Structures are given as structure tokens and as C-alpha cells.
């Protein structure tokens, strides 16, 4: 399991595209927003948490189809499926790798981009916390989408279509934590709900992912 983790991490690093690309996309989305809504700083401060969450979600989405596509193409996914490691664990590892290469950089970049959007300083800690808590759920749900569409000829667009509705609850609670946090309101309820979604998806989604991959490998 650890070997798989290290192998996947190394592959992601070497391919380069993976996390640089997601981060660059995040940056571009956030930078484009003021051009679209105008430079009024007080308006930007209001929408900043939502924009940061949306940008993070989109750059997660962008990097999803790479999770399994390469392994599918060179056949290592078949090998992983027949290895002694349960397929559920393989899927979990894939999600962890995706989170480490995409989620963590996003969390670290969020405060800097928050400053660009005039995010109130008390909101910075909450945007980091909510993204840190929410992106694992985005990753594992994304692995499910990638597993559903693995091996499809034009899976990219379908993948986004399937995953977007599944992202709705995470996005709502995550953005709500960040929004309330930046306005100095109580954040307990959405925070607990966000944590619940993440824990629940991490526990249950690998099973669904593995079932789907088995169907696709048949």
C-alpha cells in the first residue's frame, strides 16, 4: 500500500502537469473574477469565500480524469485489480494521492488568493480549514467519477457532468463555513456537516469506486 502511494506520488511529480496545472487553473479563475464583477473591494470581500471554493472545486474537477486514465492505458490498473491489495484500498490510495497533489496545494494557495480578493483576515483561517476538510471528499468523489468513466473514449466531459451534482452538498457546506467564518458568524453546524460528509465519503465511496472499476475491467 505504501509502495503504491509512493509510486503514484512519484508518477504525479514526474508528469509535472498534475499539480502545477490545477494550481494554475485555480489562480486563473480567481484572477479572472475581479475582471468579471468589477474591482469594488467590498463586493469582492462578500463573494471571496464562494469564489475560492468554486475555484478549488473546478481545479479538482480538471485533474480528475488523470487519476485512473494513465493506469488504464498501460494496463497497470488490471495488475492492481488482481494484486493481493483489495481494490477498495487501491481506490483509497488513489484518492489520497489526488488530494496530496491537488487538494493540499489548493489549501496552501487559498490565503494568497484570498488576499487578492480582499478576503477579511479572520476568514483566511476558515477558508483554509474548510478547504482542508472538504477537499478529501472532493477527491474521493472524484475518484468515483473517474472510475465510472475509465476507458471511455471521451470521458472528460461526461466525468464532469456526473461528478458536479455529487459535489453539491460538499460545496454548500464548505462555502458556508468559509462565508460564515469570514463574517465572524458561528460556524459549528456547517463545519460538523462538512466533516460528516468527508468522513462518510471516505468510508463508503471506496467500495462504490471498487465495484465500478470491477465492472469497467470486465
Amino acid at each position, binding site marked *: 500500500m505504501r509502495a503504491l502511494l509512493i509510486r503514484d506520488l512519484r508518477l504525479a511529480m514526474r508528469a509535472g502537469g498534475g499539480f502545477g496545472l490545477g494550481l494554475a487553473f485555480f489562480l486563473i479563475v480567481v484572477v479572472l473574477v475581479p475582471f468579471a464583477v468589477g474591482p469594488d473591494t467590498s463586493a469582492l470581500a462578500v463573494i471571496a469565500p464562494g469564489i475560492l471554493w468554486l475555484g478549488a472545486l473546478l481545479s479538482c474537477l480538471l485533474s480528475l480524469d488523470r487519476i485512473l486514465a494513465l493506469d488504464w492505458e498501460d494496463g497497470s490498473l488490471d495488475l492492481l485489480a488482481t494484486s493481493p491489495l483489495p481494490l477498495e484500498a487501491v481506490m483509497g490510495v488513489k484518492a489520497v494521492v489526488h488530494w496530496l497533489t491537488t487538494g493540499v496545494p489548493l489549501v496552501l494557495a487559498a490565503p494568497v488568493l484570498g488576499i487578492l480578493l480582499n478576503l477579511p483576515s479572520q476568514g483566511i483561517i476558515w477558508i483554509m480549514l474548510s478547504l482542508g476538510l472538504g477537499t478529501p471528499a472532493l477527491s474521493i468523489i472524484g475518484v*468515483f467519477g473517474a472510475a*465510472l*468513466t475509465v476507458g*471511455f473514449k471521451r*470521458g472528460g466531459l*461526461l466525468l464532469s*457532468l*456526473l461528478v*458536479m*451534482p*455529487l459535489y*453539491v*452538498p460538499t460545496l*454548500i*457546506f464548505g462555502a*458556508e463555513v468559509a462565508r*460564515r467564518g469570514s463574517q465572524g458568524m458561528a460556524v459549528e*453546524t*456547517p463545519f460538523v*456537516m462538512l466533516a460528516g*460528509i468527508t468522513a462518510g465519503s471516505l468510508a463508503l*465511496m471506496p467500495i*462504490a469506486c471498487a*465495484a*465500478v472499476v470491477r*465492472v*469497467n475491467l*470486465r
Partner: protein
Amino acid sequence: MLEQKQKESTKKPMSIWEYANPTKFLRLSARLLPVLWICAATFIVGGLIWGFFFTPDDYRQGSTVKIIYLHVPSALMAINAWFMMLVSSLVWVVRRHHVSALAAKAAAPVGLVMTLIALLTGAIWGQPMWGTWWAWDPRLTSFLVLFLFYVGYIALWQAVDDSDAAADLTSILCLVGSVFAVLSRYAVNFWNQGLHQGASLSLDKEKNVADVFAYPLYMCMAGFILLFLALVFYRTGTEIRLRRIAALIARERRVI
């Protein structure tokens, strides 16, 4: 193990899973369908005419109250169609019953259209009543999310060539999607409270609907349920025939 055995058996053209049950189903639906079509038409036409011509105007909503006879039944069927797809997906996953998977496939477009009708009539009703076509009210938003789920589900069926794999993938998507649809419902409920508290956008008319409006409404609801059943039976028959055509063509190719 069992799954594999049945997979092999589907490859044999005369196996029970490929023909016997679908034929039985086709015979049953051939007998049921005329009755269903006629009942559905009577109930819907009767209920709508009753509702449209012979009910008084609501003192607050004026004549727009008549939209309820389309809005509530279609919303009811939009949710129940997904529920039916969930049940038949479960049957497919557990029992590997082909008709069940095809019924789920057949129901999806019907559910999609029902969702569209509910959204459309809701928007048209909301324009004069709330002063806006669209509000991010919890119910409206969850129907929009439901709409997205239907679109994704149908798109996944279209994308997979192998029909058994498509049935498996869409079933799992339906199961996972149901969980997330319920989650979204609660999330949206919560999210909206923060936005406009106390706004009286409740669509919960069931509680305060008077009898004059209720009876034609029940009739329309029965009509929509019957229409849904008729459509699903008919469409499932179409899917079964499509699959049989594919099987026959494959066999012809093998012979040549």
C-alpha cells in the same frame, strides 16, 4: 461466482434470463398497456378539465391556482420516478434481472420530463406570485439538482456500449446519486435559511388546500401515476425489443 454463472448464461441465446422473463413481461404489458393508457388518459383529461373549468379562483392566488393540477402531480412523479429507478437498480444489482435494469433505463427520460414540467410550471406560477421566475428556494434548488442527476444518469447509459456493463454502472450511479440527492436536499435546506429567513415561499400547499381544489388534484395525481406506469411499461418493451434485435443481429453475424 453466481454473477459469473449468470453472465455465461446470458451468452447462450435460449437461456431463461435472455428470453423467458422478457417474453413473459412483454405478454403482461401487452395485456396491461391498453387499460393503462385508457385509464391514464381518462384521469388526466378528466382531472385537468375539472380543475381548469370547474374550480373557483383562489382568493389570494387568483386563477393561477389552476397550475397546481400540473405542478404537483409532475413534481410527485419526478421524485417517485427516481425512487422507482433506485428500487429497480437494486433489483438488478441483487437479482441480475434484465427487465429491471431496462425498466430503470426506460423510466429516466420520463422522470426528466416530469422534472422539467415541474420546474416550468413552477417558474410560470412564481412569476406573478413571487414576482420572480426563479428563487433559490430549497425546493426549487433540489429539483434543479435532481434534474442534473437525471441528465448525468441518461448520459452514462448513452456512453457505454456493452449493455450489461452500462446497467451495472448506472445502477451504482443511481445508488450513490440517491444518497447525495438526499444530502443535497438537506444541505440546500440549511443553506437557504442563511439567505432569506422567514420568506413565505413554502410550496407546501397540501396542508392548506381546500376540498374544491383537492379532488381534481387527486384525480390528476392518479392520472400522472397511471401515465408514468404506461410510459414505463411501453418504453421497457421497446428496450427489450432493442436488446433482442442486437442479440439476433449478433447471432446472424456469427452464423455467416
